[in-house]
């Protein structure tokens, strides 16, 4: 963590320079594609623009969650709720949070980085990210497309899979962290 991050109590790592390099690389890729395949490049830009519009609500929720986390949740509290020693209770809480979260995973990275730097466990964060595959609001659509048996089976199995992943991450990542 950089001095700035430490001062701000911010994300787990400084993403500033790495983020700019990543963005620069993608922009260069676009520039190359625009030269050789202009139609694909324009289609990609249009798809990216529509994705950006869909992000407005989730990002607003993430900003609100970040503000509330900074305001009310102290590192000790986060550690006790979803820390590496929070046990099954912490994993179930992470699973519930993942199920209820909306928007794409990358919109939640700033909050997860903060939770991690405040003592959140690797397993619990992995459970959150896996639990996002269960979308309560989309269950009727899934039932309509694939039927009850498929929907119930995959939902239950994803919930179990999330907990298994959390355990594996705690064992494999936590041991070397």
């Amino acid at each position, binding site marked *: 963590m950089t001095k700035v991050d430490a001062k*701000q109590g*911010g*994300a*787990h790592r*400084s993403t*500033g320079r*790495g*983020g*700019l390099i*990543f*963005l620069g*690389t*993608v922009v260069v*890729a*676009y520039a190359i*594609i625009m030269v050789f395949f202009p139609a694909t*490049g324009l289609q*990609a*830009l*249009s*798809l*990216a623009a529509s*994705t*950006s519009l869909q*992000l407005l609500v989730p*990002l607003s929720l*993430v900003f609100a969650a*970040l*503000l509330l986390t*900074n*305001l009310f949740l102290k590192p000790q509290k986060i550690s006790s709720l979803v820390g590496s020693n929070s046990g099954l209770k912490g994993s179930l809480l992470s699973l519930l949070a993942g199920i209820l979260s909306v928007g*794409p*995973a*990358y*919109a939640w*990275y*700033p909050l997860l*980085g903060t939770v*991690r730097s405040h003592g959140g466990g690797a397993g619990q*964060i*992995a459970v959150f*990210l*896996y639990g*996002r*595959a269960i*979308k309560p609001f*989309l269950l009727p*659509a899934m039932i309509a*497309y*694939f039927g009850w*048996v*498929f929907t119930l089976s*995959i939902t239950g199995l*994803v919930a179990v*899979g999330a907990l*298994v*992943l959390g355990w594996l*991450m705690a064992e494999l*990542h936590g041991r*070397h962290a």
Partner: protein
Amino acid sequence: MSTQEGEAKQVARSGMPGRGDVIRAARKAAFQFTNMLPILCGVVLLIGLLRAAVPPSALGTLFPGDPFLDSLAGAGLGSILAGNPVNSYVISAQLLADGVSIFAIAAFIVTWVTVGIAQLPAEALTLGTRFAILRNSLSFLISIPIALLTALFMALSGGAL
């Protein structure tokens, strides 16, 4: 005692954050957020590029028909593609209508959300490279038994595979 000091003491007693705390928390949140903006922009652009480069009509040719290989192909495809989960349902319904197995569909739907190749750089920058690679690899592997078991439950209930 001034009115301001009185208010501050009252706030401290109630356990509720004061105005200064709210401003500090908002500034911190804004800093954390802007720090992530280049990554978010990069991921959104990269996802647009992947969606434009891989047309849904080309996807059906990737599945050989073997349960395990179909699960692997479905999981691989779901890891590369990204977007709203409803899109994965629509693509899956089309693939299912084209004769692709339920093994592939289940793995595809699970990895669509849980594994993100395009998001990997962003995840590595915020949560660490080791975390991102390990989480995505394990999520990919876990999707295979989930797909096989989903298909098993479908078969037990009399559904088509």
